[in-house]
């Protein structure tokens, strides 16, 4: 198949970017989206043009490092699919595809489609953990955890930290990402001791990073490759209010 690509090119954070047009004549529909970009890059290098920089690593949908806007949608048109798991058979011969980085004030563009998501790390760092040192753990089966609790904690823990939720949100809110971690840990008995401190710190950090406020549009859930539910946000708000009141 033939494709016309419009790709965001920006050499560095200091330089303003622009869309550039490229054409690919022989795209195999079995290719993944990122393999299509590999082929484009080989072609660009032959023409002496700087290849397109984009983020990726595992290419199997689990590391969370890939992620671009494809025709205005984070990770492209398929539901619950990361950019690396998207295949070209989803597109039509002759189609024009717009490829841009995830956009958010808190995710500065580093180069072309590569962005800086370190804000997510700082949110986790502010409290997204259980304080237990190596050596302190009790016997694993000393606490029983009912299957529904363990399973629903898992649903939240499945987040891959890709940032699509932020890119999908008109307010660039990081509520889905932050709430997923808060919920994962708050649901488990091990995580309850620190639940109050955790939610207060993580929400404060989320705000400090310059993410917008959540207005419940639910665009994040629709874009999330891991099907993280907006109910996590409700849980976060509940945990936050509870912690706030308890503190007073």
């Amino acid at each position, binding site marked *: 198949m033939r494709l016309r690509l419009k790709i965001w090119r920006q050499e560095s954070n200091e330089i303003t970017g622009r869309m550039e047009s490229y054409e690919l004549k022989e795209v195999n529909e079995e290719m993944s989206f990122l393999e299509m970009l590999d082929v484009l890059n080989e072609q660009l290098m032959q023409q002496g043009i700087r290849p397109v920089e984009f983020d990726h690593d595992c*290419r199997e949908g689990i590391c969370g490092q890939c992620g671009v806007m494809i025709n205005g949608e984070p990770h492209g048109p398929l539901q619950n699919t990361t950019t690396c798991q998207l295949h070209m058979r989803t597109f039509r011969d002759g189609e024009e595809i717009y490829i841009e980085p995830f956009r958010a004030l808190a995710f500065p563009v580093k180069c072309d489609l590569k962005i800086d998501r370190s804000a*997510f790390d700082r949110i*986790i*760092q502010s409290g997204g953990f259980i304080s237990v040192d190596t050596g302190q753990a009790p016997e694993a089966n000393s606490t*029983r955890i009912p299957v529904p609790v363990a399973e629903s904690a898992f649903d939240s823990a499945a987040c891959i930290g890709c940032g699509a939720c932020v890119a999908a949100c008109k307010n660039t809110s990081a509520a889905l990402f932050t709430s997923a971690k808060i919920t994962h840990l708050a649901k488990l008995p091990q995580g309850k001791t620190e639940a109050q401190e955790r939610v207060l710190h993580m929400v404060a950090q989320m705000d400090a990073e310059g993410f917008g406020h959540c207005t419940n549009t639910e665009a994040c859930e629709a874009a999330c490759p891991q099907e993280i539910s907006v109910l996590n946000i409700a849980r976060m708000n509940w945990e936050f209010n509870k912690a706030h009141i308890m503190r007073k």
Partner: protein
Amino acid sequence: MLESKIPEGPLEEKWNYYKSHTKLVNPANRKKIDIIVVGTGLAGSAIAASLGEMGYRVKSFCFQDTARRAHSVAAQGGVNACKNYKNDGDSVFRMFYDTLKGGDFRSREANVYRLAECSANLIDRAVAQGVPFGREYGGYLNNRSFGGVQVSRTFYARGQTGQQLLLGAYQALMRQVHAGHVQLSTRHEMLELVVIDGKARGVIVRNMETGAIERHGAHAVVLATGGFGKIYFLSTLAMGCNGSAIWRAHKKGALIANPSWTQIHPTSLPQSGEYQSKLTLMSESLRNDGRIWVPKKQDDQRPPNQIPEEERDYYLERRYPAFGNLTPRDIASRAAKERIDAGYGIGPLKNAVYLDFSKAISEQGEEKIREKYGNLFRMYQKITNVNAYTEPMRISPAAHFSMGGLWVDYELMTSIPGLYALGEANFADHGANRLGANSLLQACVDGYFIAPYTMANFLADEIRTGPIDTRHPAFEAAEEQVRDQLRMLETIQGKHPADYFHRQLGRILYDRCGLSRSAPGLESAITDIQQLRKEFYKQLYVPRGFAINAELEKAGRVADYLELGELMCHDALNRNESCGAHFREEYQTPDGEALRNDADFSFIAAWEWQGANNPPLLHKEPLHFEFVTPSVRSYK
């Protein structure tokens, strides 16, 4: 020269004896000690977090944009531990024996025993961190059986065990970053090791966002940089996985052991075209219900469902009636390759075999199969657009795990004092073949429970050393070397990008130093790799002058692979026997099974770098079996 430092005494007492006699560093002195940890996978995050908790000053590096993306994240199946929760007769000794036997008796008894001994602690640690392992309805932890052992000792978190374990370790790491004990630099690639007066004292790294070359000094350096299976180009590893960190350490004097022992996983998705960049693993658990077959007729063009039962060759069931489709990975992969090479492969590139669920579906019902493997069938459909409930899957073998790696002693220290290697980067515990679900365990155990003790034994003598001065000439020289190499790669300005060479290297290694090897094949592979290396340095193209430059990063890794690949061939050529994943065509029984030679090859082959134009130098560490008698693996 190779002193394994295995403590005296009975097997079950060795580790306890070691722990009670090793030197310690007083808590007040720990903050005077700097430690560099390269890698944030399970091994790297675990050791950096544990050292931070103890009060050491740690600097941690990874090449991804956050620590949580290290390739440990991709492990699906599970992690082994002998808790004996199932009351099915598991014990430390049994787990030790299974692992030693699975590795075809090519690993150290004491190391393997310690791995099994520490396994139970890991589950406690992970659960305390909030890892949501699978549970039974009573709320207790559940287990499954995995990789052909007779007990259920595998803990799992859906099909995402690696992700969940890594998030636990990552969160522990970030807690230490927050506490100021660990300084984390993401998007930094280690390009050189600095050795001063024979001790590892620092690294040179490249900041992949600014292009800056940085020096970092420390009293000890830990490499937890994962496996190098990506050397085969097509593999189940991530795109950035590399052998560079261990290779640069090798060129500074660290020995590499058994580098050619690569596990080739039998159930990955086949390559579909030249453009393909990686192979996706389908969990091994599928072999519990799937039957593997190829058509009896060569080059059969009919769609699988039109090939009648009597015209199918269920070759694993035919050759290994006792284990059938559940034979260990090395045997299943080799049998697939044998059929594919003989012209019975299926699919457009004739490079695959069928994995068929029709029998299981007719016996158990589609619902049951969906319950067990729904997510895998979905993933298969996402990638191939084929519905595996109605048509068999196509699978093929893919490079997956490096049993070889930096040689380490019982303390996980390499042959360079102060340099440690943890996780998949070392060679230690899996022998010639790794058992499923044992490597997440090994990475975690190395990082949480072993290195924190063994490193103290070395660091106790460093409390008066004072900060390492990065103005030392050794840093100067190492930095210059890195700059020279980067400059050189950029100035060749030839015709082909790094991937072009990497693909060819991968092909050479897969064909001649992969599932089966022979002396003539390996000899020609060595010549071909040398030739390819020459061409690389004449024809490489790297875009010049950009700070963020994925092509430059790849070129550096491929340059190292082109040397490491040659060493793998030397290693395979030297070992005139078949064992585990290493199958030499000359050494097989009349019916095609591996022929091990304990009399001559019961040793670890540790190689020393002698310069690019000289063959490597072999050091042998003999293996002693005091507590078990090596037996012959048979799955017939």
